[in-house]
């Protein structure tokens, strides 16, 4: 593997969408499309028969759909963290992985919004969620955290899309100038908006990118905080806690990084990007996972501490349910997957070994899904009124829709990997050795 040069980078990354996909790609796409199809059938079945097709009952009105919503929104957070916060901190190693992580953010939010939309039961009138003047003379309730969610998720999606597209414009301009196919030329020309790399443009562009990074940083912290308000502002024991916003944000970054590691390992192997996505990247990302795991451990302990120290019998009962109740297995699965397994990453060997990092990433993905299961189902199935207690059991339709969103997510990832540059070539070019004038200070180099 030779030194990376700007031209070589283009030949490696930008030429990729013009090559013919290998057989394995079609094979993977067939699997993800099948999963997506199963999900769509289950969603169609739900529309025709109603929400009764799911396992939701009274008092567990919020079940798989909200678990999956929180899970997918969380997955997206790694992308925004990498593209925004690490940009502000000038962690330039992020440039190589930012594009893919941002794309995953957008795909994850698409998967996430499916769930509230189908949970309302009549998604064709989902526009009622927005405050618009109407004949019924009704307005939305601005004191409801669910409405805050509508604004937060929509803003998050718009900002992520804007950030992603701005980053893509110079890369698409490069693809426009190198492609020989007429159809591609037309598409890339339209998408690049006539970008020509003028110094005056770069000046505004860099400013816009910096501003967007600053704004998106606030968003990373706010979106999952607002999602946690859905729970924290209620009175349900196990939800009504001040630790929820930071705890949710940390969990989201945790789950998101695990997903990014999982996907990037596959991408760097199959697309021969080892010289760009290096062992150091994986090492650093695994360190982030380890740090987040420790924050999660602290949060879990604080939950137990609050239950004990508050001397609130309902909170105490709720916490005991997590470790000894009917769903105690889910509680322990969460704790082992999120807290115990990632501790292996203290060892450098594990942080650079595919086996261990994939094991941890899969464990964290499962663990974080079950964490939301624990928070939502365990808290709801036994609250203040013992006569209303009920056991929740998901149905096959529930699982089908969850599988379907995984199908949608990976289908989009696969298509993205084939049609757009998976590495932000422009950003990587700018930090290559000798990319900047030598009289300039070297604080911008990696």
């Amino acid at each position, binding site marked *: 593997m030779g030194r990376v040069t700007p031209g070589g980078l283009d030949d490696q990354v930008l030429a990729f969408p013009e090559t013919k996909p290998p057989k394995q790609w079609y094979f993977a796409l067939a699997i993800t499309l099948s999963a997506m199809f199963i999900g769509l059938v289950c969603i169609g079945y739900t529309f025709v028969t109603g929400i009764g097709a799911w396992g939701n009952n009274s008092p567990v009105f919020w079940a798989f759909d909200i678990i999956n919503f929180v899970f997918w929104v969380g997955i997206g957070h790694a992308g925004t963290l990498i593209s925004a916060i690490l940009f502000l901190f000038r962690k330039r190693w992020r440039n190589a992985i930012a594009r893919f992580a941002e794309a995953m953010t957008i795909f994850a939010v698409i998967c996430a919004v499916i769930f509230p939309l189908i949970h309302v039961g009549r998604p064709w009138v989902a526009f009622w969620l927005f405050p618009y003047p109407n004949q019924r003379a009704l307005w939305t309730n601005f004191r409801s955290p669910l409405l805050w969610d509508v604004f937060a998720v929509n803003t998050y999606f718009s*900002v992520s899309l804007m950030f992603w597209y701005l980053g893509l414009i110079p890369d698409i301009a490069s693809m426009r*100038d190198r492609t020989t196919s007429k159809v591609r030329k037309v598409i890339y020309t339209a998408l690049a908006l006539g970008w020509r790399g003028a110094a005056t443009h770069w000046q505004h562009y860099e*400013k816009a990118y910096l501003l967007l990074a600053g704004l998106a940083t606030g968003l990373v912290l706010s979106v999952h905080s607002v999602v946690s308000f859905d729970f924290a502002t209620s009175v349900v024991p196990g939800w009504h806690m001040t630790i929820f916003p930071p705890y949710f944000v940390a969990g989201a970054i945790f789950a998101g990084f695990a997903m990014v590691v999982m996907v990037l390992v596959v991408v760097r192997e199959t697309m021969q990007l080892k010289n760009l996505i290096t062992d150091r990247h994986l090492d650093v990302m695994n360190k982030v996972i380890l740090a987040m795991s420790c924050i999660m451990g602290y949060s879990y302990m604080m939950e137990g501490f609050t239950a004990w120290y508050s001397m609130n019998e309902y909170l105490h009962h709720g916490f005991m349910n997590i470790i000894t109740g009917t769903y105690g297995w889910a509680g322990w699965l969460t704790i082992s997957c999120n807290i115990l397994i990632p501790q292996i990453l203290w060892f450098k060997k594990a942080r650079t070994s595919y086996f261990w990092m994939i094991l941890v990433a899969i464990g964290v993905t499962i663990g974080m899904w079950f964490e939301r299961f624990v928070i939502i189902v365990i808290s709801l199935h036994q609250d203040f009124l013992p006569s209303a207690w009920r056991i929740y059991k998901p149905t096959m339709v529930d699982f089908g829709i969850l599988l379907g969103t995984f199908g949608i997510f990976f289908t989009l990832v696969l298509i993205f990997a084939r049609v757009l540059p998976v590495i932000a070539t422009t950003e990587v*070019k700018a930090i290559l050795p000798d990319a900047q004038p030598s*009289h300039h200070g070297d604080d911008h180099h990696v």
Partner: protein
Amino acid sequence: MSETMPASERSYAVLGIFDTPDALMQAIPKVRASMLGAVEAYTPYPIHGIDDALGLRKSPLGGMVLVMGILGALTAFGFQYWISAVDYPIITGGKGAGSWEAFIPIMFEVTVLFATFTAGLGMLFLLNKLPFFGHPVLSSKAMSSITRDRYALALEAEDESFDSGAALRALQAAGALEVEVLPAPDRSPFLTSDFILRVLGGIFAACVVSGLAMYFATKWFPLLKPMVYMQDQPRLNAQKPSGFFKDRHGMQRPVAGTVARGHLPTATGTQDAAAALVNPLPRTKEIFAVGRKAYANRCEVCHGALGNGAGSLTAAYGGKPANLQAQQFRDYPDGKIYWAIVNGKNAMPSQAADLTDAQRWAVVHYVRALQRAQNAKDEDLKVATP
């Protein structure tokens, strides 16, 4: 349009290509010093320090974003306050209609939204004037290497006196590896009739397409299943047939023997058996008022205002209602009068459907009062006199 020189011979700019950022940065002061035209650089990625070298002014984007962000916050606050406190005030969670604390999350989100769109779209459309597909540099031979790994410096013509030969030499002297003269874009009249026709055709097509789309979205799509499931409910409609019952009627009679609330029958046996019933109501002014009203509504037309059987209907139809002042009826126990009200007697129909149980017993009290009033004795006067 210049009359003296054909467009193809005029040049827009001269482009010099460099292969390292250092070469570019060293060339910029030299080319600027030549004063032959405006200097612009084209690079594959942002070069640090090039803004100062080219003498560019600071980007105004930060101020624009700040203003629009503040506007977003104010918009969100005003909108939420107007809705929650003025147009549609609803008390939620015991908070006052105008309590603003709950507006903060949405204010934050809208601030970010406004600021982001200002930063992104303002940069692209306002400051960089994109999309612009007709720029001469885009059709230059050097473009594909500029977006790859080459750095270009352009000396742009500012007026008619631009000397492309001198510019070419200046760039070469500054170290350009290759130079390229960019011809000025062909400035044929913009609004040709062909162009106007095309635009009008496009607008017409857009109207037709969006009209059809709106028709299907509002008239056709919402009437499909399952969108109509809210109307399409398995329920019985009054006055409509229903396949649920054997007689195919939507409305069904009550089951035989059904008793309405408050109408539990008390006098179902014979009149003699009812003699044992005792009037449960006390003899108070209010009860007598109820009895008097019920008697006036239901009894008086036949039995008369005095209970003597001389009601107004008697004259019209010649029937013979009972004279309640007769000794026979004055000797009746309360229960037998009550029985007659409930079940009817001879030509008299049952009053059970029209008088509640309490009203019937009140009527009994009132009839007793009528009888006593018409057959008053001396001692009654004594009782009445205090």
